[in-house]
C-alpha cells in the first residue's frame, strides 16, 4: 500500500522528528510512504481567524498535491479536521458566491481520503499493536479537534496501551481544552495561559514523565508552559512513541 504523508506546516518547520517518526512507523508496518513536495499548510490558521478567502489557494494546493493518492495520512488531528470539516464549507461558500464548483469538488475528493495517523492505523491498517517499545510513564491529552471534530474516541489510547514498557497514567480533566486554539493563544492570551496552567497542573499531578497528544500544536502550548515552569515533563507526539522500538528509543 502506498500513502501520501501530509506532514503539516508546524511539523515541517518546528517538529521534523514527528514526520520522520511517521515515515519510520508506516514503513515498519509495510506501507510505502510518499511525501508530495508540492504540499503546504492546510489553511487552518487563516480559516480559524476569519480569513476564509486566503485559505482558498491552500485548498487548491492540497488537492493538487494529493490528487493521485488513495490515502493521505497526517500526524495532526486539527489539520485532519480542517480538511474534513472546513474544506467542504469553503467549497460550499465559494459556490454560493458564484465562483463555481472547483473548490467544492476539491473538498469532495480530499475529505474521504484524509486520515489522522491513529485513525489510519486502527481503521485502515487495522492494527493496535504496532510493535513499539517506550519504557516511560505517559499521560495522554485528547486534543479537542481529535476528540470532538474527528471523533477519534479511544483509538489513540488503544494504540498506547499496546506499547511495551509504557505505563499510561490517567489525566484528570483530560477532555478539557488546553487553551491553545491557534491565534486564540495570542488574541486572548490571559485566558489561554490560565487554561494552559490548569492543564499543566493536571499533567504534573499524574507524575508521568511525558505528556502525549495527536497534535503538535497543542503540545507547543502545553510544552511551552511546562518549559517556562522549568518542568522536566516532556511533550511528545504519539507518532514518536509508536515509532520507538527496542532497537531505537526516540
Amino acid at each position: 500500500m502506498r500513502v501520501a504523508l501530509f506532514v503539516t506546516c508546524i511539523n515541517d518547520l518546528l517538529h521534523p522528528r514527528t514526520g520522520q517518526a511517521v515515515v519510520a512507523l508506516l514503513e515498519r508496518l509495510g506501507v510505502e510512504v510518499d511525501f508530495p513536495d508540492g504540499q503546504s499548510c492546510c489553511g487552518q490558521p487563516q480559516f480559524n481567524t476569519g480569513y476564509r478567502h486566503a485559505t482558498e489557494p491552500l485548498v487548491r494546493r492540497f488537492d493538487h498535491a494529493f490528487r493521485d493518492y488513495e490515502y493521505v495520512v497526517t500526524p495532526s488531528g486539527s489539520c485532519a479536521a480542517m480538511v474534513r470539516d472546513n474544506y467542504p464549507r469553503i467549497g460550499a461558500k465559494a459556490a454560493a458566491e458564484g465562483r463555481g464548483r472547483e473548490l467544492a469538488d476539491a473538498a469532495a475528493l480530499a475529505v474521504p481520503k484524509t486520515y489522522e495517523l491513529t485513525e489510519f492505523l486502527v481503521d485502515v491498517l487495522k492494527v493496535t499493536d504496532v510493535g513499539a517499545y517506550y519504557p516511560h510513564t505517559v499521560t495522554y491529552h485528547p486534543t479537542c479537534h481529535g476528540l470532538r471534530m474527528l471523533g477519534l474516541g479511544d483509538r489513540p489510547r488503544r494504540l498506547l496501551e499496546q506499547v511495551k514498557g509504557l505505563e499510561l497514567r490517567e489525566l484528570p480533566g483530560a477532555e478539557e481544552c488546553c487553551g491553545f486554539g491557534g491565534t486564540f493563544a495570542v488574541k486572548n492570551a490571559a485566558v489561554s495561559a490560565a487554561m494552559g496552567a490548569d492543564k499543566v497542573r493536571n499533567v504534573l499531578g499524574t507524575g508521568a514523565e511525558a505528556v502525549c497528544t495527536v497534535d503538535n500544536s497543542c503540545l507547543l502550548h502545553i510544552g511551552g508552559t511546562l518549559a517556562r515552569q522549568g518542568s522536566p515533563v516532556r511533550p511528545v507526539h504519539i507518532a514518536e512513541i509508536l515509532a520507538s522500538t527496542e532497537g531505537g528509543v526516540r
Partner: protein
Amino acid sequence: MSGTYLGMPDFPRAAAAATRDTRLRANLTHATHTIRDKRAKAVAELDDWAQLRAAGAAVKDRTLRHLDHYLEQLEAAVVAAGGQVHWAVDADEANRIVTRLVRETGEREVVKVKSMATQEIGLNEALAEAGIRAYETDLAELIVQLGDDLPSHLLVPAIHRNRSEIRDIFRREMGSWGRPAPEGLSDSPAELAEAARLHLREKFLSAKVGISGANFMVAETGTLVVVESEGNGRMCLTLPETLISVVGIEKVVPRWQDLEVFLQLLPRSSTAERMNPYTSTWTGTTDGDGPRTFHLVLLDNGRTDTLADTVGRQALRCIRCSACLNVCPVYERAGGHAYGSPYPGPIGAILTPQLRGIEGALEASLPYASSLCGACYEVCPVAIDIPEVLLHLRERVVEGGPVTRRGARTVLQPAKGHAAERAAMRAAAWAFDHPGVLRAGARLAARTRRLHPRRLPGPGRAWSATRELPAVPAESFRDWWQRTRGTSSERQGGAK
C-alpha cells in the same frame, strides 16, 4: 440600579482582569464543574437523548422558517384569549411600550420574574428614568439587583458570588429596598433563602403590576410558558392585576405538543433535573383568576436580521439552558461579565454580535472569545454548531460582507484595526502557496536559530509572557526528506 453593559471593555481586556480575580475563578470553577457533572448524568439517563436533541433542533428550525406565520397565529390566539399584543422593533420601542403600559395603571412599582429579554433592552433602567421602580424576584436576580451588579450567567445570574458575599449584600442593602435582612443573618443557605422569602413576600402582596419574560410561546393556543425552580415567578404571574410579558419573537413554538420535547431537553440541560419544579403557563385572561389585564410585547431587536443569515440563524434555536456556559473553559476563566451582555459564554459570543451588529469593539472581539474546542456544541440540547457560527462571524469581522440591518441588505466593511493581521495572514497564505519561498524562509530560520530572542516583541509578546518558544530545528522535514529520500516526490508538482 446603575448596572449597564454600555461601554464595556472588549473581551480580551475584561477577561484578562477576571483571570486575576482568584475568588471569582474559584466560585466559577466550583459551580460550573458541579453542574456540568450533574448534567452529564441526567442526560445519560435517557437513551433517546440524541433523537430528542434532533427533534428540538428540527422543531425550532421549522418554526423559524415560517416565523411570520406562527407569530400571526400567536397574536390571533392571544387576542382571542383576552390579551393584547404589541410589536417592538427594537429596545427603545419595547421600553417605551412597557413604560406607557405601566404608567396607564397609575402604579410606580412593578415586580419582575427573571427575564433576559428585559435585561437585553435595559428595561429596569428605562423604568427608573420614568420614575418606576422594578423589583427583581428571582433569588439570584435579587442578589444581583441588591448588589448593584450585573448578571453573569443565564441561569444563575449571581454565580460569581459566594454565600458570604451574598449575606453581606443582604445585610447592607435589603433595608433600602423594603424589608431589611433579619438581625444576625448568617451565610447558611436556609437563612439566606428565608431572608429573601420574607423580603419578597412583601413585594408580591402589594404589587399591582408584574413583568415577565417567557421560555416558550405556543402559537396554536396563545399560551406562554415560564420554567423556574423557586416559584417566585409563579407569584409574579398570578398575583398582580396587570401582567406584561416581554418576549423575543424566536420563543414561539407551533403546538402545545411541541413542549413535550423542550420540557425534557431544558431541565436536564440546565439544572440537571429530570423535571423542573415549576412550569407556569398562562393564556390571556380569566375572570376571577390571575391578572385582569395581559399584555404581550413581542421583541425583535435584531432577531429578524439574524434570521436572514443562513449560517448564523441557528443561534435563534437557543432555549437558554446555559449548558454551553457550564462546559466552556473560556467562560470558566473569563467570567460572565466579560461578554458585555445578559448572554454570556459561548451562546453570548455568537448571539450578541448578531443582535447588536459587529461594528463595536466588544462585539467584534466576541467571536474570538473561544478556543474552538467544541465542548459547547457537544452539550447544546438544540445542536447549535457554535464553533461554526463563531468562524462565520470571525470572517465577517475581518472580511466584511453582506448583512441585513433592520430588514435591509447592506455590505459591511472589514473591521478597523485588523490591517496588520490581514497583511500577515495574506503573506503567510501566499508563502504557504509558494513552497520554494517557504523552504528558503525555513532554511534562513534554521541558520539564524541561535540569534532568535527568547521573548518576542509585538503580538508575539502575549505568547512568550507565559510560555517558552519552541526552538527552531536545524533542518525542516522537507529538507530532511530531500536529503535522505531524494527525488521520489519531485513528480508531485514540486516547488513553484
